[in-house]
């Protein structure tokens, strides 16, 4: 009994040192155009739940932003979200989200795999033109992600998501935490 309790205490200690101290947040922000009255929101709420499986829908009318969350184990299907917004009668301008996961390399691309549900995103950044040919990331970002990959640590990435036909969705990296610790 004392050994088991001791092992539990040690396990909890390791847990508190790692970036796992981040809250399990993978918040999704949808930038939806055409939302211009209070009960525009109900149709959008309904379609996002039924079509895309999202929950915790919160519409912020002035910002034109809708926040949502994924149920445990459900991956983000960008196509379904786009379709849900379309069926509600609005236009999806963009999706922003925060992903906590581990970095991998697939050919020339760096990827992140969400620890929430195993969804993989190809990684880009806005300054990728300042790179060697064929790369989608700037030198600085690539080096940070490579370090995180080699040390097998969790990172927290935020950015805009876009769909790729036949490929994992792309994530345009805007913020990156945990890669340099």
């Amino acid at each position, binding site marked *: 009994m004392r050994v088991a309790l001791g092992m539990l205490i040690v396990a909890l200690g390791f847990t508190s040192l790692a970036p796992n101290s981040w809250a399990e947040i993978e918040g999704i922000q949808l930038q939806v*155009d*055409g939302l211009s*009255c*209070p*009960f*525009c929101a109900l149709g959008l709420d309904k*379609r996002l739940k039924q079509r895309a499986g999202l929950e915790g829908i919160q519409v912020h009318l002035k*910002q034109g932003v809708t926040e949502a969350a994924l149920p445990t184990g459900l991956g983000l299907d960008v196509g379904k979200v786009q379709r849900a917004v379309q069926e509600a*009668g609005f236009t999806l301008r963009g999706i922003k989200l925060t992903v906590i996961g581990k970095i991998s390399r697939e050919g020339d691309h760096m990827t992140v795999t969400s620890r929430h549900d195993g969804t993989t995103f190809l990684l880009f950044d806005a300054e990728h033109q300042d790179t060697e040919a064929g790369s989608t990331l700037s030198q600085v970002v690539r080096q940070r992600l490579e370090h995180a990959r080699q040390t097998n640590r969790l990172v927290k990435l935020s950015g805009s998501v876009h769909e790729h036909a036949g490929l994992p969705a792309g994530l345009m990296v805007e913020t990156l935490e945990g890669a340099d610790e």
Partner: protein
Amino acid sequence: MRVATVVMAASLVWAIPAPAWAVAINSDVGLTPAKDQWIVRSQLRYTKKSDDPTAQDRELEIFTMPQTVVYGLTEKSSVILTIPFLSKELDATTDGIRTSRGDAGLGDLLLLGKHRLYTRDYPSATSRFSVVAGTDLPTGQSGDADARGKLPRDLQLGSGSADPLVGTAYTWQSLDDEWDVSLTYQLNTTANKFEFGDVLTYTVAYQRRVWPFNLPERGLYAQWNVVLEANGQWEQQAKSHGSRVDNTGGHLLFLSPGFQVATKHFVVETSIQLPVLQNLNGNQVEPDFALVASVRATF
């Protein structure tokens, strides 16, 4: 008794919950749901007409309770069904005796299809254009009679004919204000050798948010709007046995101020229609005003 029966039947419809979309109060063609979304509007309208150019001193009171159900087939197409309950009562003096005649019950159903042809969405604003087409169905009685014989055409609940209708609706909506413009044309057909005149209706509506004055940065909020509409109707003269009927047809234009409370789940609104242009043929009784109150909900 008949009026009481109509009111009771209509109050049962009021018990059905429903959701809504903020558009012109005195028009049905602007209602637009999302795919698989329902919108229901329950409306009560009271019209008083008493400006009689003849010695009969006629007064006409009309209670209408149109119940409108809208269903989104797709994000662009919807069907609209309006079920009207009516009560009409006409008081007139004939040979020095004041009499009253009237009727109450179900009127002619209106069934429309609506398709959105154009959409341009902006952050917190939208511009949309749609077309509508459909018909009214002769479900209202057109041959009712009382102790004095068959009721006049204007007191009947229905036209007796199926009458096709086409129209357009445009909406510009932002968080601050909204414009709605709609135009419909109803082609009335013949029943029992009588044909009501074709009707062209047009509405231009503007609404402005008055509360909250400053929008909260986050979340949803109930919204209070003031509304001003111009509702016009031009009606062709009726025909009986192929000949034009005097004392029918003309042009009416109403200015209709109103007020609206819109939330995520429902809209409550009210309006008064005041005639500003009355150009009626012959000796028709002219409208004094109309009062409108309605609730819309969605689910």
